[in-house]
């Protein structure tokens, strides 16, 4: 079944820019403007790879290492996430390792931001860290809820398999609350609208973009690609862990095809929801963000406690 796992990872990596393009297309549709084509992200990345890069004098060797580390961590995560088949290419450590890989990604980006000594880099890093301090607990509690709900520990393949096999019985308050909290975390992590505007160019409001301001050429390509991949992975996780019905655990081609189709449908719906939220809401003030994130933390806390009380 290695072939299926490799296919799954390759698929996840390849689809990422498509999803980004799809989200911007839906947003454009919502604002009834034509918007760029779905494949535009691929073209941007290709263009960036060909351009040469400008490196500031006050940057050190770390500046060149950060994009590589970000890209590598996201690729490994892609190998760890079940998309349409429960078996994964790198089953070494469950959801807890996933969270810590995200921390690794964020840590590298913050150091990248502090390079070059520009004001915006420092500002982006400090705001990013503030938000991640509030995201981490709800992320961990979400994982704990899944582990306790499925009773299968933190290995992602087993979780999606057991929840799928539990069918409707799994759809209790715990799972729904955890899914909502995970959705908010998804928005916050990937710097979507209520928390940070991904398409903005006004440095004072940027969080995620400010950190990669210094990068150019193929480094910027790698950074862009890894953030798209992160977005895609979050959506895939939401799909395969919180709504895993239909994911195939046996290897026969028939169930694989069905679960592939289902997985894509789930991915598109989540992307549509993200785009919908982005066009409806506007970016909230930086120190309003903690209130929103505390909502997500409360949701996941209640989700976990409800498992024990109910």
């Amino acid at each position, binding site marked *: 079944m290695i072939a299926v796992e490799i296919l799954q990872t390759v698929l996840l990596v390849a689809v990422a820019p498509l999803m980004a393009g799809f989200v911007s297309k839906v947003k454009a549709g919502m604002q009834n403007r034509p918007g760029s084509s779905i494949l535009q992200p691929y073209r941007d990345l290709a263009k960036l790879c060909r351009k040469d890069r*400008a490196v500031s004098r006050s940057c050190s060797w770390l500046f060149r290492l950060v994009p590589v580390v970000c890209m590598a961590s996201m690729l490994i995560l892609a190998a760890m996430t079940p998309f349409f088949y429960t078996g994964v290419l790198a089953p070494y450590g469950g959801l807890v390792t996933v969270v810590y890989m995200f921390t690794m990604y964020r840590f590298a980006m913050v150091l990248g931001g502090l390079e070059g000594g520009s004001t915006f880099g420092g500002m982006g890093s400090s705001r990013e860290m503030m938000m991640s301090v509030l995201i981490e607990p709800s992320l961990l509690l979400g994982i704990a809820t899944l582990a306790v709900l499925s009773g299968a520990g933190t290995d992602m393949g087993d979780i999606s398999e057991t929840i799928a096999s539990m069918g409707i019985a799994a759809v209790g308050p715990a799972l729904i609350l955890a899914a909502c909290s995970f959705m908010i975390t998804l928005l916050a992590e990937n710097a979507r609208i209520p928390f940070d505007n991904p398409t903005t160019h006004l440095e004072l409001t940027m969080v995620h973009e400010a950190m990669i301001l210094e990068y150019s050429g193929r480094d910027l390509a790698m950074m862009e690609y890894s953030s798209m991949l992160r977005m895609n992975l979050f959506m895939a996780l939401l799909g395969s862990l919180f709504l895993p019905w239909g994911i195939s655990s046996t290897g026969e081609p028939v169930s694989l095809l069905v679960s592939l189709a289902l997985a894509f449908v789930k991915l598109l719906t989540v992307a549509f929801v993200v785009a919908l939220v982005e066009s409806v809401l506007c970016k909230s003030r930086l120190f309003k963000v903690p209130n929103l994130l505390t909502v997500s933390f409360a949701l996941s806390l209640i989700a976990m406690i409800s498992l024990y009380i109910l």
Partner: protein
Amino acid sequence: MVGTGIDAVYLILLFVPAIAGMLLGLVKASGRIPVALCAVSCVIGMLCYPYHVYSPDLAYEIPVGSYLGSYAVSFDQLGSFFISISSTVFLMIVIHMSHSGHGYTPGYSGMCSALFLSVTLCMCAETAILLLMAWEAVSMVTFLMARAGMDEGARWRFLAVTHIGGLVLMAVYGYMWVVSGSGHLGDWDGLGTVLGQGTSMALALLLFIGFGTKLGTVPFHAWMPDMYAASPTHTTALLTTVCSNAAVLMLFRAVYSYIGADGLTDIGMVVCLLSAVTALWGAMESMVQTEPKRILAYSSMENMALVTMCLSMGLIFWNSSSSLTALVTLAGLLHALNHSVFKSLMLLAVDSVEDVTGERKIDRMGGLARVLPALSAVALVGVASLAAIPPMNGFISEWLMLQSLIGTNAISSDLRVAMPLLIAMMGVCGMIVATSYARLFGFMFLGRPRSQGAADPRPLRKGSISPMVILALLCIGMGMLSYPIMNVVSEGACLTAGIDASYRDGMSGSLEPLTLGIMILGTVAVVYAASRLLSRREEETDTWGCGGTLDERMQYSSEGFSQPIVRVFHPFYGDTSSIENGRYLTRFQEPFVKYIYNPLGTAIYRVSRQITRVQTGNIQSYLGYILVTLVVALMAVRLI
């Protein structure tokens, strides 16, 4: 009993050089002999665990004992492994010390061997008198080693708090000594049944408080930051790594094997809560410090709080599922060991940076990565393992802790409702600490130099980088090869505490650290190679400054970096910000010092002023005291 000849040879090689180093240091012998002797002892100490595998029951009793029993040492699996790791760390610090530019006096290096001696004795003492003596000697030697520091108050506050902790431990060990009837720690197992529920709970709490003074649990942590900042960096490194290891090992043995952990659930909960508060407080305070050594002081406080939290959770899980207890105690002990490795690496790096730039505060550093790439690479490894980034050893113990917390659905007791709060606490704590380390590394090595010292630093001293490189490799090694280490530590812990289950079936998820590590490093290498295939043209420009040229003052300052988090957690910080001669200053008043230490100090002083009024100086009142005492005593006798 002295084992075979080789045992005796090993013991002699382990202890005699340290004793010689100490005596030479005291008699102010010049040159590097005391340092060399101390290094020899450390090397032998490193071989402790392998030697334990070779001859398991190594024990020895010195014929001439003290009034309260003989001096005996015995090495069990857990103790010898702890000694090996601590001696490795000790060796690295000593090597760095000998190469560092501080020019320490022979007395100082004599003290180093004395500290090695007392810490090793703490870990392998067989009789209570030797244990107590070694423990007090540790704090005394650290006190003397801090002499070269600037701030006097910090030093004696450290000695006062740790001595009070020592007195509490003397009472607890004395009580167990009296109850068990013999001075040998060997036959102190399971005193809980003899002591009864109430007293064993009281003893366990006192133990946590006694050792809490050294590990920095919340009410007793006030001495830590000042002591770390004031004393020479090598003393701080030894204090936070080697002495904390000894404290954790003694705490584990005392609670789990002497008292026996059954029936201590409530104490477990209380200490768990206390350590959670300590961890949060340590993390939050490390965010706002401006000196690297103070940041690392609060981070030690946070790490040690996680260790005590694990040990106290072991008490909660004890009667419900022994496999979870095995897992959580393994997590605690392994975290203590990992902490000693990466914390010593960071402190040595900080010392080199301070030596090279001559600056003390992070706001005056910056841009060193460009000038000293090797030092910054090593420091990056340290910071990564501190922040629990996957391939490093910090990640492994955090992973184990989270696993044990998540696995709590297996336990039946009603305390498991509190588990989600603990998970959340660990999440917040982990991320704040990661932020403060990113801030530490970022403001020391990245960006543009903020002072003349940072702009053109002196060249790094020859040979002072090698111990740090070894420690960095150790961090990565212990991270990737942690599987065998986990087995050894857990087996030793189960042996000592009498847990019969294996930690493996307590884990609700699988982790192969080796393959994970190889995959991460492999992928990074592959991606790096792939990226080099693309266009390699590179152009040198200035940092983007919206058109204007940026000078170093326009970079983010360290207060600015931590300002969002301070605003989010404002009620806890007690911060007051003010504008003074053009600079925006935020001052932090440590609430514990304000509400506990200062009132306590003034109360004692006021009471003593009242009592000394007895000494009026006039002989009539003195004679009056005698008359009153005589009459009262006679009446008392007559009435009773």
